[in-house]
């Protein structure tokens, strides 16, 4: 048992097949102790299959996964005491209150020392501690799920899509809780398809597509190496904006909400595009210029959008 290793998680040539489908295709990576590691990718990329193998829910088809120095396929009973898991689409017992739920999970770990009130405070649910699960909003349910994943004071926390389906406000509330975990020095393996989430929380991001890791590094490194261009976004545009922009040599991307994004190399390009639009009499209601993010990295590396609402570059 190599407990003294710097790595909390070591994944070597991991493959998971469901019939003919290779959900996870020969991937390898390591997660350092105290690191927040994000698997970023669209739905169906293989994130959940990967994390469910590492957190012992599923068994791998081939490859080796070591968690805290233990083999996940043979030492599950030892591992579960030292990890906390928020599975994708987490739910709990409808009629049980927040406090009772945490007490219940605490007892499953044979622990008498869990300070349930402190956990409730950590996830900002103090005024909801006597509320039954069914009466909680989506964001509160996810925060309870995170609290449950911490009842055994785990060394490694797995959070599978912790903010999927939440409104922006609830998502930010969950992020605050996750930043608290990061400050406490927990090792966190996070899956998400929100690039802001990965950028904000992760020390290391692995971009995963069709079961393969296509890039890995810190968010800054990934962006620096793969997407240096700035992005001009024009909102509520006329139908001919994309054509005008293309005519002057840029590659516009038209999103489903009448927004056009254009990669620009230098600041003068903005003036050039706006002048062309003005000359053509094309209208738009707003614009912004921002640095590239992981969304652009994903687009560049895969040619596909991270979210369904985005078209591919150049296919306007």
């Amino acid at each position, binding site marked *: 048992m190599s407990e003294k290793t710097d790595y909390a998680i070591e994944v070597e040539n991991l493959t998971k097949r469901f019939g003919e489908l290779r959900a996870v295709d020969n991937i390898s990576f390591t997660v350092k102790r105290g690191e927040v590691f994000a698997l970023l990718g669209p739905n169906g990329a293989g994130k959940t299959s990967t994390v*469910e193998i590492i*957190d*012992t*829910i*599923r*068994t791998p088809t081939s490859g080796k996964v070591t968690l805290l120095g233990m083999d996940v396929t043979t030492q*599950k*009973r030892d591992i*579960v*005491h030292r*990890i906390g*898991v928020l*599975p*994708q*689409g*987490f*739910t*709990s*017992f*409808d*009629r*049980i209150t927040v406090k*009772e739920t945490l007490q*219940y*999970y605490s*007892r*499953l*770990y*044979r622990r008498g020392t869990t300070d349930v009130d402190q956990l409730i405070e950590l996830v900002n649910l103090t005024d909801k501690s006597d509320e*039954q699960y069914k009466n909680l909003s989506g964001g509160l349910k996810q925060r309870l799920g995170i609290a*449950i994943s911490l009842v055994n004071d785990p060394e490694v926390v*797995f959070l599978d899509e912790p903010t999927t389906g939440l409104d922006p406000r609830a998502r930010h509330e969950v992020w605050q809780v996750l930043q608290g975990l990061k400050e406490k020095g927990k090792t966190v393996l996070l899956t998400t398809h929100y690039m802001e989430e990965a950028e904000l929380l992760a020390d290391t991001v692995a971009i995963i597509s069709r079961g393969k890791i296509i890039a890995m590094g810190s968010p800054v490194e990934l962006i620096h190496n793969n997407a240096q261009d700035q992005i001009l976004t024009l909102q509520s545009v006329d139908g001919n904006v994309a054509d005008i922009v293309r005519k002057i040599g840029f590659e516009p991307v038209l999103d489903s909400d009448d927004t056009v994004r254009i990669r620009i190399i230098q600041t003068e390009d903005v003036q050039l595009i706006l002048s062309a639009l003005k000359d053509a009499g094309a209208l738009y209601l707003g614009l912004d210029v921002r640095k590239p993010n992981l969304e652009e990295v994903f687009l560049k590396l895969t040619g596909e959008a991270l979210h369904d609402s985005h078209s591919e570059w150049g296919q306007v």
Partner: protein
Amino acid sequence: MSLRVVAANLYVKLLCVYREKTTMFFTLAFPVILILLFGTIFMSQDNVNFHLSVQDLDQSKASKESIEALETNGKFKITRVAPDVDAVQYVKDTKVTLVMVIPKGMERALQRRKFFSDYQSTAVITYVYDPSSSSVATKMDILNGVLAGINQELSGIPPFLKPVTKSILITKYRFIEYFIPGIIAMAVMTLSLFGSVNSNTELRQKGIIRKLSTTPITRSEWVLSDILYQFTIAVVSTIVMLLVSYAVFDVNLHITAWLPAFVALDVFAFVGIGMILTRFVKEAQSAAAAANAISFPMMFLSGSFFPIELMPSFLQTLAKTLPLYYVNEGLRAAMIFEDNASALHSAVIIGAFASVVFILGILATKWEEGQ
């Protein structure tokens, strides 16, 4: 195995059902409603009182005495039909299903028989009836029996064959007392089978099982807490059923250690079947349909509601292959007849079945997602 974990799981399950007031009410109310419904039917059957219309065309002392004899017999509530009414039309026009017509000249025929020993002298009683009525055949059978008694009495000769009933039981038992153990067996089966299937498929669909698989709780701790939960619900339900039976029908049943023993065996057997079903049926609705497919035939074929002797012989053979039959038989042996040997015989059979099914159920329970 940690009893603390088992207790935590049991507590949460009981808390959930306690807070689901509607579910709990109907869980306990269903067998009670059956007891009240069937109990009322069977109790009135013990004092059955048929409506019978009688048309006396003779209007004599003898005919009046015959009608009074029918009334005092207690089986019939008599309605008199005027002699000038057409009995056939009367049955057609009213909801009456049977009119017994006493012929004109009945008294004279009786006198000829009595005083002149004319044994060829008879009075023909006519039954005018509606064959579409399901109860009319029963009425006529009872009426035939009563008339046979009246014939015997009128003949003035004591009967040669005199039946005397002798029960093997010291106390006379009513049908409701036969019925209650069957309802207990059936209710515990339903609670255990549906409880196991519904709760496990629901928890699996909600992803709670997946979450639990990442905690230290073991499959045996989960299964044991499930059994204890189902047993607790079954015990509460049994107590409610017995309280209602004693309060409403003043039943006379023997409550011994056999009762909790059979309830426990019933729970084990049907939770085991439920666990097997849960393994193979993924959706909650399909699981409930599968549980229905098992429980309904068993409910009616295994003698919970009526003795299997009333069924065709091949169904009787089939009934004896059903686990619920042995719970019914065992509970009746213990609660009615105080027959420990028969109770033990049934307990051994259902115990063996429960053991096999329960082990298969544990093996079938899929805790981790596995593949």
